[in-house]
Every structure is written in C-alpha cells, then in structure tokens.
C-alpha cells in the first residue's frame, strides 16, 4: 500500500515546516518509491520519472509551509507530482508535434503510447508490452486512476484523497478508464487478444 503514514508524520512535517532537512529526508525516504513509480506510470520513461519525482520533492520542500498543519503529506505532494508530470507530457507533445514534418496539410501527432518504454515492465511478454503501451495511450485522467489502482494498489478511499474527489468519482473514472483500455487493446491487435 502506498503513502504509508510515517510514524509521527505530523511532528516530522512540523519540523520540515521549520526548515529541517533531516526531517524532510525521512519524508523523502518514505515516499520516494511511490513517487518514482507513479511518475513512471504517468510519463512512461525511467529517466523522466526519476527527474520529475525528485523535482517534485524539491518543490514540496520549498513550499512545505503551504501544507496546512494536520494535513497528510502525500495527497498534497501528489498534486505537485501530477502537475509536473502532466506539464512535462504537454511540453513533450508540443516538441514532438513541432518536429514532425507537415505533408500536404496532413496533421501528424505523436502517439503517446510510443513514450511508454516496455523495458520498464518486469517479466516481459507480448501481452504485457501491449497493456503497458495501451496505458500510455489513455487520457491523463484515466491513466492516473489506472496507475494508482493497479500499480500502487491504492484503495478507492486513498485514490479519492489524492485526487480530491469522492469515491463515487473514482469508481466512475475507473469504469471509463478500463473501458477505454479494453477498446485500445482490442483495436491495437485487431482482436488478436482473445483473452479480452
């Protein structure tokens, strides 16, 4: 389960607010794996995920005074992380689009799934590679809910806390995300995946 509560998190955060780097180090060590893995799920590349997750912690430390006393660290931090990841994706998309040649009025767009490197998947096979690429093609909103549920194993309540929404919204978003994922997988392989 992600976002484990560090023992005495509130007092550690209090020390962070007073500028203690040692206290912040313990927060980082507690959440770094969640942060990296979520970023990896959102942007699809190992190097970018490492860079973005570290940048998110740096920004969190700079702004830790804005985290209200008594509030949990992770949902607040998650907003910084997801905003960084989504803004990175938008920039990457823009760069990619501007690099693509214009041919007789045809509009080329880079397939977002192309950035999802299958090398990051454990015990790879064709099906797992396809699922990972299909996740990369989901919209940002749908992808994050899939990542939080399937790759970080978060219960609905915790996903709702991180996304600042109700568990009903989480269920609804998951339904549409999974439906899209199924459709992408079906069209990708032209119905080759009879497992679905």
């Amino acid at each position, binding site marked *: 389960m992600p976002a484990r509560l560090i023992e005495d998190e509130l007092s550690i955060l209090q020390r962070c607010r007073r500028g203690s780097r040692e206290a912040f180090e313990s927060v980082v060590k507690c959440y770094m*794996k969640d942060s990296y893995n979520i970023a990896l799920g959102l942007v699809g590349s190992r190097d970018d995920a490492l860079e973005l997750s570290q940048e998110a*912690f740096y920004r969190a430390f700079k702004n830790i005074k804005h985290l209200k006393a008594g509030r949990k660290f992770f949902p607040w931090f998650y907003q910084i992380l997801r905003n960084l990841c989504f803004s990175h994706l938008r920039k990457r998309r823009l760069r990619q689009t501007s690099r693509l040649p214009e041919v007789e009025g045809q509009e080329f767009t880079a397939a977002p799934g192309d950035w999802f490197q299958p090398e990051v998947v454990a015990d790879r096979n064709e099906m797992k590679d396809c699922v990972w690429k299909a996740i990369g093609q989901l919209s940002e909103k749908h992808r994050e809910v899939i990542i939080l549920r399937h790759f970080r194993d978060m219960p609905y309540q915790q996903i709702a806390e991180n996304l600042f929404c109700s568990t009903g919204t989480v269920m609804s978003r*998951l339904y549409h995300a*999974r439906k899209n994922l199924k459709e992408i997988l079906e069209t990708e392989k032209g119905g080759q995946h009879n497992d679905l």
Partner: protein
Amino acid sequence: MTCNKYKDLMMGYLDDELSDEQRIKFKQHLTDCSDCRQELEEFKKLKAITDDVTLLEPEDKIWREYWGNIYNRMERGIGWILFGISAILLLIYGGFKMIEDIVKDPTIGFGLKAGLIALIAGLAILFVSAARERLHFWSKDRYKDVRR
C-alpha cells in the same frame, strides 16, 4: 436505478471495494441483467491482465543516491538566490558608478550625458511600473491564499 448507475458499482464489485449493502444491490442487478454480467466478465479478464503487468524495480544505487540528488537541488537553489541577489546589487552599484563617472567627465558632451540619463530613467520607470503591476495583480488574486 438504471444500468448506467450500476457501471460504477461494477468497478467497486470488481475491486472488492463495495459496502455489504452495495454488493447485495449489485448482485441483485446482475441476476437480472445479462449485459452487465457479460461486461463484468470482460472487466475481470482485463483486470487480470493489467494486474499481471508489474514494473521493474530500479537498481539500489538509484535509491541510495535519491536523497542526495534532491539535497543538491536544494543547495543549488540557495546558491542561485545568492548569486542573483549579489549580481543585481553589483550591477546597480556598477551602473551608478559608471553614470557618475560619465556625468562628472568634462570631456563627454551634454547630449550623450542627457541621453544616458534618459535611458536610465526610462529603465527605472519601466521597472517600477512592471513591479507595481505584478504587486497589484498579486494583491487582487482571489486564489493566492488557496492552499491544499
């Protein structure tokens, strides 16, 4: 309740996240609705193949160096702030000294002196105006105190 309302509950059922009451309600619906039964089976298969995908753990070195990289960013941040402030102060000081020297230099003509002073005055007005505008927008920003 329409079938659409049960779609969300289907996810909760699939992930074992429903309350007892919701589960009973959903199971009742399933007995009456073959479309939802079929969709649930498809989602079960999708969930199984998605759960099967796990991500490789990066090597230990990455975690050992993780905090160090963030710490370096923090240090660099302080370094950039100090560098920026001192560069601005030195530029202002150097600028004033240069203007002073030019104004006091009798070999430089009045036209050049007047032009230089006008240039500096223009820059100062632009700077003050931009700073005042930013301050004005900041004070009127309704969301500046919104904190998560």
